[in-house]
């Protein structure tokens, strides 16, 4: 067994996911099966292999330079706040995070 019930609860905590009791049990079994399958990757010797962290090396600019950092008009603040579950312009509202 690669994954215990405590592992599932710990990872759910890291991921900010509330799981119900049946999800905890189902995911434990399923993640265990998936991770057991993924162990296949251990068969390969990758000690001299570079990780593929980028698909295209600086595709946008072969010389490695990023585009110029210039301020552009972006007039969507109101439209974005309208989508918020709770907002008080110009802010998003959330439950209190800092105690006095």
């Amino acid at each position, binding site marked *: 067994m690669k994954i215990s019930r405590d592992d599932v609860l710990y990872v759910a905590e890291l991921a*900010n996911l509330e799981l119900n009791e049946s999800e905890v049990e189902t995911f434990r079994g399923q993640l265990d099966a998936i991770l057991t399958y993924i162990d296949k990757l251990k068969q390969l010797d990758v000690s001299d292999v570079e990780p*593929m962290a980028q698909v295209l090396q600086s*595709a946008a600019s072969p010389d490695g330079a990023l585009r110029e950092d210039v301020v552009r008009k972006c007039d969507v603040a109101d439209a974005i706040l309208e989508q*918020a579950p709770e907002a008080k312009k110009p802010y998003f509202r959330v439950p209190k995070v800092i105690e006095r």
Partner: protein
Amino acid sequence: MSAANAWTVPAVREALEAKKLSARELTAEFYSRIERKNPELNAVLALSPERAYAQADRIDKLRARNEKLPPLAGVPVAIKDVISTRGIRTTCGSRILENYVPPYDATAVEKLESAGAVILGKTNCDEFAMGSSNENSAYGPVRNPVATDRVPGGSSGGSAAAVAAGLAVAALGTDTGGSIRQPGAFCGIPAMMPTYGRVSRYGLIAFASSLDRIGPFATTVRDAAAVLSVIEGHDTNDSTSAAVPASDYFEEMEKPIRGMRIGIPVEYFGEGMDPEVRAKIEAGIELMKQIGCQPVELRMPHTEYAIATYYIVATAEASSNLARFDGVRYGLRVHAGSLREMYKKTRGRGFGAEVKRRIMLGTYALSSGYYDAYYLRAQKVRTLIARDFILAFEKVDAIVTPTSPTTAFRLGERTMNPLAMYLADIYTVTGSLAGIPGISVPCGTTSDGLPVGLQIFGPRFAESRVLQLAHAFEKANGFLI
């Protein structure tokens, strides 16, 4: 090809130019098709008639003044619901974005509209594009128009079904591990994943950023090329978009394919493949040989590691990308006393089972103590898989494989076993990891009438060669094999 599919990009153009009908009438015709057929198929989630008719009227004004029409003038298209559309609800097939209306358009959408296309609405998909059957949508599964007891494939199942059923002339999908090509195969239409970076991802709601690509569904290879040539190109809003010039696909497609070497990797013809699928693909390869291609047997030794690699890389990236859905800025919020509790409850209620499973797997793979064993190792194996392709393309011009080991399966058949569902992505995830372009084209039907897809891979940025082969295959009646 059925009457439902009679409309193509050139047919629309010809009808509009000959004044046989207006863009407004054509738009109305497609909306009435959707009204008739969508209740059964569930391929379309949201309609955008105001925007569509306004665009149709613009095209009709150009026609009235006898002005030159843009390349996709009046062509009715549908957009997968993970791609942002200004003013049109975009849910990603998820409850967590049930009421989300983007304030801007994805670059691909903006380009389609600038080229004259009429955006009919949004298509159903697996939640956040995670799935291979479209059964993971919070808005119900899509049914395959070829056989309605079957899945259309996924995750772009709604786009594939819409085009196959004649509810749109073309559609945009997204492909992360096969999500364009596999539903294209299951629904019997051409479906193309371009090279990573060829089409801007700006406005595509991210699943796995190093794998996600936008690409077209159409009923002919030419139409797929027509859409691709409009949506591709460098975009300063996407730092991974490539500044590599594209060729004129229409010119390239007509060039002779005689002498082209097509690689047939033995690893793609192993166990687990349906014998009828195998027979059709072998017949497809034989046809390519008859029209002048030279098959070359290949070995791609890291193929068997692709699924394991993919499901680590993709879920790790997903766990990070989906952290933004926390109830603060958009979508669902489940109220709670503290911020942390609000996050957890919102995500617990807003996400479906497959999305949670992948967030869990990805979070685990990135967590302290496991990063090297899983994520870093998977990135290294990804290098080896990409290298298999680089070496192969030193010997061959393109690679031909089946798109999927089976035809469309029945709804509910695989939902209980996520690993079995993942394993069926074996022929598509390799190309996703390698960043190369691939197309699935129809390659006949099995004895029970279900479509088989043949996949053609090319080297990075060799879309023109992939399209050239696919077009030659289509012209030689390969679709009907």
